[in-house]
């Protein structure tokens, strides 16, 4: 139903000179959608307050209300007399609307309030529309979208996800924010979060892990208090980059989490030694950025110092996990085999601080646009590692843009993970069998079917001669029929 609207917005944006690529599409669509979402949220709250006989103080007031500037109406029809358009509209948005909303950050009572999030979003973002006419068209299209029912939100969230995925496919930069959803779902099925537990992603990106976890946990028979817990005290995330932060918030909002607990900050600035019990979480799901190269002062926050952001994140996650907590973290496969001091020390730390029970080896091309091969580490905090179950994911085809990973590809892994059996694609490595110097965890499948024994040169020659003899007879027969 909303597909056409989204397509129209995209067509409009393509004509806009200030907007260059898929990232910009998503960014600029996001802030407009976000304001419309707030407007609908407010109307709903106002109606509810009225029914209860309460007063309602709106978040956004006066001329900055959606129905004052974006879609002014008289008797339900668009009011052409008061609507700003062209340069007036751009001037209003740039010089009045954005500063007004950005100021919410100062006036908000605390960082968990929706006011504060609004303030953050609009401090971080710039309006890139240069033509007030195009913006007017986009506003009109977005005004047609409605966030009032679950079904509407679900559809919007799916459309938004498609845009994020496309952004991920658009190139390296976009790919930072996109983890393939089937992989996320498999990771969630294995860690299996329950109501009452908290879920944390320190490199939240487009919030794919949190949104999918929400979908996984939100069942129809939740009690009101369970639902409240799910909404307000379950999902936590941090993100360093502004754009990803906005997209993450928007994505969670569209998935139905009204006030996401996302914080805009560099997770790695936190000294891991300062993490206390109250900061810990039950479930960690994450795909931290690879490479990166954090600055030296940031590395000071970690016992194992390295420029590799993924390694810093892994240390952070190990300490951020509550005793008995479960984690699933995507990491570059070289983590398993690299012999530099940091890699070895980190492997040792992981094996000792947590029970690393499963390693999922993902095929090349799982992440589009990135050449790296990845694995997923599944671990539980508490006891040290005893044995590790490896599973080599082999969908039997090469991954590509038109043929990405799907849920069926991962079904066998999720099923087998419960019992961790030996099989053609899976095997167990005992902690005791690891090399004590390197803790090398490289993926080496001992159960891979052996190649057929090679023939001797004599056998090859005999085969060839036999074939030649038969061929000669066939040719004689054909000659006979002529």
């Amino acid at each position, binding site marked *: 139903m909303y597909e056409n609207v989204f397509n129209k917005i995209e067509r409009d944006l393509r004509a806009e000179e200030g907007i260059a690529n898929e990232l910009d599409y998503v960014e600029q669509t996001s802030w407009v959608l976000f304001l419309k979402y707030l407007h609908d949220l407010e109307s709903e709250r106002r109606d509810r307050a009225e029914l209860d006989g309460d007063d309602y103080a709106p978040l956004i007031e006066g001329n900055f209300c959606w129905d004052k500037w974006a879609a002014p109406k008289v008797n339900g029809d668009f009011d052409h007399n008061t609507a700003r358009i062209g340069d007036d509209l751009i001037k209003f948005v740039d010089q009045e609307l954005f500063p007004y909303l950005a100021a919410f950050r100062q006036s908000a009572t605390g960082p968990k309030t929706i006011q504060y999030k609004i303030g953050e979003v609009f401090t971080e973002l710039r309006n890139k529309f240069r033509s007030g006419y195009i913006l007017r068209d986009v506003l009109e299209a977005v005004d047609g979208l409605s966030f009032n029912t679950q079904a509407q939100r679900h559809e919007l969230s799916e459309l938004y996800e498609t845009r994020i995925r496309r952004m991920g496919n658009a190139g390296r930069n976009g790919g930072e924010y996109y983890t393939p959803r089937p992989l996320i779902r498999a990771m969630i099925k294995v860690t299996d979060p329950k109501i009452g537990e908290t879920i944390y992603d320190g490199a939240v990106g487009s919030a794919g892990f949190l949104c999918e976890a929400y979908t996984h946990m939100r069942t129809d028979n939740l009690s009101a208090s369970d639902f409240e817990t799910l909404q307000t005290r379950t999902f936590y995330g941090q993100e360093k980059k502004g754009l990803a932060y906005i997209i993450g918030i928007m994505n969670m909002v569209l998935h139905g989490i009204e006030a996401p607990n996302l914080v805009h900050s560099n997770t790695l600035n936190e000294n891991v030694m300062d993490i206390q019990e109250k900061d810990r979480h039950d479930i960690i799901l994450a795909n931290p950025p690879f490479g990166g190269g954090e600055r030296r002062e940031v590395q000071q926050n970690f016992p194992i110092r390295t420029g590799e952001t993924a390694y810093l994140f892994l240390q952070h996650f190990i300490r951020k996990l509550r005793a008995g907590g479960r984690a699933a973290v995507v990491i570059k496969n070289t983590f398993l085999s690299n012999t530099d001091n940091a890699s070895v020390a980190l492997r040792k730390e992981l094996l000792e601080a947590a029970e690393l029970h499963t390693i999922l080896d993902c095929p090349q091309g799982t992440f589009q646009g990135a050449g*790296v091969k990845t694995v997923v580490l599944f671990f539980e905090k508490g006891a040290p590692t005893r044995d590790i179950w490896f599973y080599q994911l082999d969908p039997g085809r090469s991954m590509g843009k038109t043929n990405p990973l799907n849920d069926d590809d991962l079904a066998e892994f999720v099923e087998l993970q419960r019992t961790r059996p030996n099989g053609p694609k899976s095997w167990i490595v005992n902690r005791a069998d690891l090399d004590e110097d390197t803790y090398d965890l490289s993926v080496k499948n001992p159960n891979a079917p052996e190649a057929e024994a090679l023939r001797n*040169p004599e056998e090859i020659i005999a*085969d060839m001669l036999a*074939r*030649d003899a*038969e*061929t000669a007879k066939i*040719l004689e027969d*054909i000659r006979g*029929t002529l």
Partner: protein
Amino acid sequence: MKDVAKKGWETRLLGEVCKLVNGRAYKKPELLDDGPYPVLRVGNFFTNNHWYYSDLELDEDKYCDDGDLLYAWSASFGPRIWEGGKVIYHYHIWKVLPSDRVDRDFLYYFFDWDKELIKKEQGAGATMIHVSKGSMEARAMPLPPLEEQQRIVAVLDEAFEGLARARAHAEANLSDAEQIAARSLDVILEDLSTRNGRITVQEIAAVKGGKRLPKGSKPGPTPTPHPYISVKDLTEDGTVSTAKLGYISAQVQRSIARYTISSRDVYISIAGTIGKSGIVPDELDEANLTENAAKLVLTDGWATEYVYWCTRSADFAVQTSEQTRVAAQPKLALQRLGAITIPKATEAEQIAVCEKMNALRVTRSELVEAYSKKLQDLDDLRQSLLQKAFAGELT
């Protein structure tokens, strides 16, 4: 048609002996990932295994079923007897409905033969062969009485079955011919290894890397006295091709002057494509080597060619892949390359290995040529049998 005077034979236009029914042209949104009917496209006809589905209910003649004669008429084209169950056939495919004067299989063989004629008419090397329905219906077909058609079909069926087997044999022999030398090498080296034991690469050679060009400079096609060997120049048969070789200026060469390779060294690629090994020809002695390949500078007592043959063995390949680390790009570190082992051998044994392998190399190319030719001959024989059949000479 020349020999229509033959008893009972006549020449008819194809349009008279059969009817061609166009497949349905699907719009993209109509092609679904799931549905009651598979849609047969030209791609599926030949190689492609990916299917689309349709939920449209169409006229009966838009479906085909087991035993129907189909004809793909665009790009890849030719006849086929369908055996894949009930499907909707897409545009670019005709369903052929034979009239009662023609046998289905006879028609099939005619199309098969005629296909080659169309190719010839449209010119050798034409990239896109395309036949219109009109031009197809206007093609002439020699038509014997029904009984005679069936007899010809029986003869062709038998002969072609044999030919298909002969062709499969020749293909198998072609691939075996490639393997004889490779397997002989493995056997010879295994034998040496059991007798003499093994030695690591770093014990018999200095393992050294090549060098990346300084930032901003690129090898150019214009020859200078300083060739720069990249992995793309390394050939399958263990030498270096000069066809696309790049050259660098004297100035650039000075900055990487230490990283040259001698024709007494063995090279081996260590990044991306791993394990391509060989010897640099004399004319490229002292050329610069890419950072994606390493050179083995051999110590006295080790023959370049012997070490080269060792790097070509299956055993060496297994060790290489064990030592390779895959991140964004597979890489074989110099140190790990040095840890790979080869069989020890005396100088006399080394010479003997090289002589044997060189002889086998010659035999191999002779055999490959012979079997490639045989394949061509079998194809020609098939076409000539069809030619005879439709000239009425198959008696």
